[in-house]
């Protein structure tokens, strides 16, 4: 049963991944990428790595790809200009692709040689999420915290680099608008009524 499910999701994954690079419309490509993420999350679930699977959906499908789509939909991309220079860039692309393929083969080859990991099965009694948390906050606490700090710095840097306050633009300040009182806006002027001449 698990085999059937695995092959089903693997087929969908391969189909979606290949469509990402063959489909013409960039929005369709992004949606196929979402499908690819989703099926790989399902395959991780089959491996009982529920935290990784859900984190993949939560982070990549729920946040990253939504922003991707957001930008893609707003851009009016000229598909023809994207396809220019295929022949010119082909040698570099082929080289990069070959290197990546070689790396994948090396990793999978080395994986075959490794003894079956006992730690993973031993931990199965503890929920996956809890086990990950235990390791993250004890053994790997410094790398984890450093990674978080680096991400924070990168985020602040990105905002600082891209934010150029317009000097002439007018901004609304909701906090001032919300806290406005009657006295700030209206003035009651007492005037004697004019008499008819």
């Amino acid at each position, binding site marked *: *049963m698990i085999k059937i499910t695995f092959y089903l999701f693997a087929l969908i994954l391969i189909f979606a991944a290949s469509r990402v690079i063959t489909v013409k419309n960039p929005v369709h490509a992004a949606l196929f990428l979402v499908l690819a993420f989703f099926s790989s999350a399902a395959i991780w679930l089959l491996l009982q790595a529920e935290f990784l699977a859900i984190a993949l959906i939560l982070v990549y499908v729920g946040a990253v790809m939504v922003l991707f789509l957001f930008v893609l939909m*707003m851009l009016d991309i000229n598909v023809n200009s994207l396809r220019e220079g295929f022949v010119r860039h082909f040698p570099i692309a082929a080289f990069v692709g070959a290197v990546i393929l070689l790396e994948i083969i090396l990793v999978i080859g080395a994986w075959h040689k490794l003894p079956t990991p006992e730690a993973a099965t031993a931990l199965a009694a503890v929920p996956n999420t809890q086990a990950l948390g235990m390791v993250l906050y004890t053994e790997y606490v410094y790398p984890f915290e450093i990674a978080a700090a680096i991400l924070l710095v990168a985020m602040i840097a990105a905002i600082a680099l891209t934010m150029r306050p317009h000097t002439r633009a007018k901004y609304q300040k909701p906090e001032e608008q919300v806290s406005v009182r009657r006295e700030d806006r209206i003035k009651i002027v007492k005037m004697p009524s004019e008499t008819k001449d």
Partner: protein
Amino acid sequence: METLLYLIITLIKIVLIVVPLLLCVAYLTYAERKIIGYMQVRIGPNRVNFSAIPGLRKIPGFGQPIADALKLMFKEIIIPTNSDRFLFVIAPMLVMAPALAAWAVIPFSEGGWVLADINAGLLYILAMTSMGVYGILIAGWASNSKYAFLSTMRSAAQIISYEIAMGFALVGVLMAAGSLNLSDIVAAQKGSFLHWYWLPLLPLLFIYFISGLAETNRAPFDLAEGESEIVAGFHVEYSGMLFAVFFMAEYANMILISTLSAVMFLGGWLSPFEGIELLLGENWFTALLIRASFLWLAIKISLFLFLFLWIRATFPRYRYDQVMRLGWKVFIPITLVWIVVLGVAILAKIPPWFA
């Protein structure tokens, strides 16, 4: 054979959850029209009755949701020219599916009344609710209409922003309960109604519920369908049953948010009268009152749903920059501060919640 049996039983359970849920969705629309009607001093729908059924004859307009559903089913589905046909049709389903899928991990009553009692339940809920944006994004883009697209941009930005505050509110709950499993979260709130998490997590409850309003695109955060500005929002081009699916998904999401608020902050199926037997003595009446059951959960869900409708009848629509300010500059800082406060409270083992 065993697998097949398991599949069939699971399927029956799914039907047992989905069919009552859809009935609730139908009658939530009736409740909304009636309640808002009375709040605005009108009587709401009152023409369609079940005159053949004796018990229901006296309730005016009780057949209205059924009539509406029938009407929508027989209406023509118009697909705009130059729209992306496949995505146009699939978008309503992409909104509806996550709203239903999230119900898999919701515990209805004590003793395993849940479809999938998984350990990462809370994370699963977060993942599923974050999927709902896709339907809206795709619907707006595929209809090839400016109004729909503007609304999509508004709604997607709003949903992404409020998801963060919502996620932090859930972090508070999981810190307090020490578990991601929803049944365990309810069990951790056992005691009296003062033991429920609404008290120690009060700011988070407020933020969770208000973010829920924003997530479901309900008033006062319904600028995605601001009728005065962009007609009706991302579903302007939709008609007939395709439109009805969007509509149903909105109400299903409302019920989901209410259920989650009840489960995480108001003790789910636990009775609010727990501990009353110490005051009144143990007899059949107090035994009945303190019994944990699905009825309590239903009452709590109805309470939150009523709040949804009440808020819709009360507040005017937010302006876009105010929505963004509330999400990013008010809610997220409050949740961050409260998580630190909660951490201190848990370390100090403050009774009765964290002892």
